[in-house]
């Protein structure tokens, strides 16, 4: 702590107040190293977990609000807003302080909709999604796609949570070489300890923090990639490979040596689509598009891909399949078992079965021959008050299950 005219007692009493109200953030709050700075408008963090504090701001802000600011600033660091800002900027080729201000605002929206209340006062002038006419509970990246700098944001032009919030270096930053910074590994360790604390006793932790803690070190995989991986891996081995069945072209030059040759045997893929009312057209459409793309990518021929829809009204499936040139086979009830049975009756048999469903169906008793991938549309299932212990049927263990959407 640099000596100065700052009311340290007030600043640290505020931190103590914050720790008492948010004990699960104690490690992170205590890990912040404070630096007194007159160039900072309020309080700001850098990516090395230093917290720059303006003495004038400490003087004019009530202690309870100051505690809210502590939690707000440490939230930027815990949620890696600087890293995410950098990635977003690189991905969308955004430059300039205006864009970084937008990132700061979006990051603030992500934090402010769920950190205050419950003993912690919202600091005056804190950005709210509602003040930008946006819905609450979204991520910084989502907010960034929804607003531009304009009249709604004009009031926040002074906003500055530092390089720890938006990734843009400030002239007051002490930088990577300065004293008391945390290395990348130390930062990860602090975030991990906080996440572990929350996961260990999630009881009175708000939902937003619980979600963060679960995903802090394992961000959820995009289902498209997962579905692609599952289908690809179901197909590998069924596709092209080497075999000793026929002599290789190279054999002529090497008498006496037995060479394998590459022989193509693309897999037959059958997609069973549950088109019952509970599956939305949009979900189905995107899932089917992915499947078509995957099948194309693995070199599947159109005549080897068939789609079987399990419902009466399946216009999405039909249109898509027509557009993609995939032949449609038959129809059936909403019971996927009939679909599986029909696939197995097919001649020749499918090597890979992909089932897209919301899971509200009985499953076949026996494992079908070939590999099976189940794309499961995830949704909040309504709780049946008469039968709270009702568990929906889960996909069988023999299928690779990917949660879609």
């Amino acid at each position: 702590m640099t000596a100065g005219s700052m009311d340290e007692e007030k600043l640290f009493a505020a931190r103590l107040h914050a720790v008492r109200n948010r004990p699960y953030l104690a490690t992170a709050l205590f890990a912040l190293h404070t630096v007194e700075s007159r160039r900072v408008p309020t309080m700001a963090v850098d990516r090395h977990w230093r917290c720059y504090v303006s003495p004038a701001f400490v003087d004019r802000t009530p202690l309870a609000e100051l505690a809210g600011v502590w939690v707000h600033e440490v939230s930027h660091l815990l949620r890696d807003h600087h890293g995410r800002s950098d990635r977003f900027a690189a991905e969308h080729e955004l430059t300039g302080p205006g864009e970084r201000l937008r990132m700061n605002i979006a990051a603030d929206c992500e934090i402010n909709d769920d950190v205050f209340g419950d003993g912690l006062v919202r600091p005056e002038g804190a950005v709210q999604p509602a003040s930008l006419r946006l819905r609450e509970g979204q991520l910084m990246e989502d907010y960034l796609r929804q607003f531009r700098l304009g009249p709604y944001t004009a009031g926040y032009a002074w906003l500055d949570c530092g390089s720890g919030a938006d990734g843009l270096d400030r002239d007051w930053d002490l930088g990577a070489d300065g004293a008391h910074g945390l290395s990348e590994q130390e930062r990860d360790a602090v975030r991990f300890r906080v996440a572990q604390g929350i996961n260990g006793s999630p009881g009175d932790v708000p939902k937003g923090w619980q979600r963060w803690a679960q995903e802090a070190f394992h961000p959820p995989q995009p289902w498209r990639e997962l579905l692609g991986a599952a289908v690809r891996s179901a197909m590998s081995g069924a596709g092209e490979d080497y075999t000793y069945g026929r002599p290789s072209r190279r054999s002529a030059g090497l008498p006496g040596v037995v060479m394998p040759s590459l022989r193509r045997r693309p897999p037959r893929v059958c997609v069973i689509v549950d088109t019952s009312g509970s599956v939305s057209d949009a979900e189905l459409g995107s899932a089917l598009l992915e499947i078509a793309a995957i099948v194309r990518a693995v070199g599947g021929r159109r005549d080897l891909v068939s789609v079987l829809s399990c419902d009466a009204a399946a216009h999405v499936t039909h249109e898509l399949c027509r557009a993609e040139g995939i032949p449609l086979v038959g129809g059936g009830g909403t019971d996927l078992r009939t679909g599986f049975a029909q696939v197995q009756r097919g001649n020749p048999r499918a090597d890979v079965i992909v089932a897209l469903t919301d899971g509200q169906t009985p499953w076949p008793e026996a494992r079908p021959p070939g590999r099976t991938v189940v794309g499961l549309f995830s949704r909040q299932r309504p709780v049946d008050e008469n039968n709270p212990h009702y568990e929906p049927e889960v996909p069988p263990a023999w299928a690779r299950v990917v949660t879609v959407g």
Partner: protein
Amino acid sequence: MDIPSEAAHLRPLDVAADLLALLHDTDTEPRADTQLEALTLAVSADLPVLLWGEPGIGKTAALNQLAEALELPLTTVIASVHEPSDFSGLPVVGDDPATQGVPMAPPEWAVRLARAGHGLLFLDELSTAPPAVQAALLRVVLERQVGALRLPPGVRIVAAANPRSSAADGWELSPPLANRFVHLQWAHDHDVVVRGLGGTWPKAALPRLDRGRLPDAVTFARRAVCGLLIARPGLVHQLPKNEARRGGPWPSPRSWEMALRLIAFATAADVSRDVLSMLVRGAVGDGPGLELLAGLDRMDLPDPETLLADPEVAVLPERGDLRQTVLDGVVAAVRRRPERVRWNAAWSLLLRALETGAPDLVVVPAATLASLRRDDWPVPAAIERLSGAVSLSRQADQAAADAGEDR
């Protein structure tokens, strides 16, 4: 045949060669490179490394630098353009297969490597090779067996694969195979690329093992891994539930042994925690790796008993959260064995903490320590000086009370 005259006729490509030479003429500058240090250590530790990275990201350039640092000749084999027999050996039918068997002849590069006795074998594009080639290759990577030939121990192997998302015809690593690799994510650094294209490439000083530290490094690594696994038996073997994560690093006795080896190497080479973090997480996965690293951080903290024995010379950690952990530990030690001398020593430590760092850290330990007082222990005079912390605590209480009234 015409002999060219002195005023040689310049062929068009001669000028091109001059231009190419100018383009090749680049500088290097020293720059710390965490991922290259991690790779060097894992290769020194003789563990199979799998580099995950997009094509064209500079994996080959890194391998060149590594080979130079380890003083090994580099042999690159592009897996996807080979046939399985290039790795499992070509069956050569001899005179009498019934009695002599059919030998599996190794390819030329393997013979060359075996003859040299040492070298760095880089198996590139593992993920785009057909499954049979991959199967043959994994034998090379894990058992060092190329057909009938066994690669000597001096040969080190590194493989590279494209991440699942970018490999259209990619493959998933099966969990047992994934468990045998140290997974390193290879990413490019924007600054390095831009500066490099401008003519200055980085030159990393790669870690070297310090012979004098070897025994300590082994003790340290064993203590770290065993300490964690005694406290968290569930971490010994944990197959990830998520399908996609099974193809990456996950904890098992085998990967813990790799982690142990990596810690010993990192300690002997005295590399930064960032490098160690990359290695350990690449061996046992993010969660268990971070727990291990947190354990290492705690091993670095001063022992409460040592602090209590001599509070006047105690050095408390600078970082607030670590300091809090130490102070909590000190108070807990007094609670375990409450004696007047220890109680007084703990007060001196709290005072030191107050004088050298943020005051709010002291509040909770001070309150707990005060509650441990026995009736016949006089209040030490030093407590007076803790009044700052008390008033700070009172301010926070007031804020909480105000908030309560507002509600």
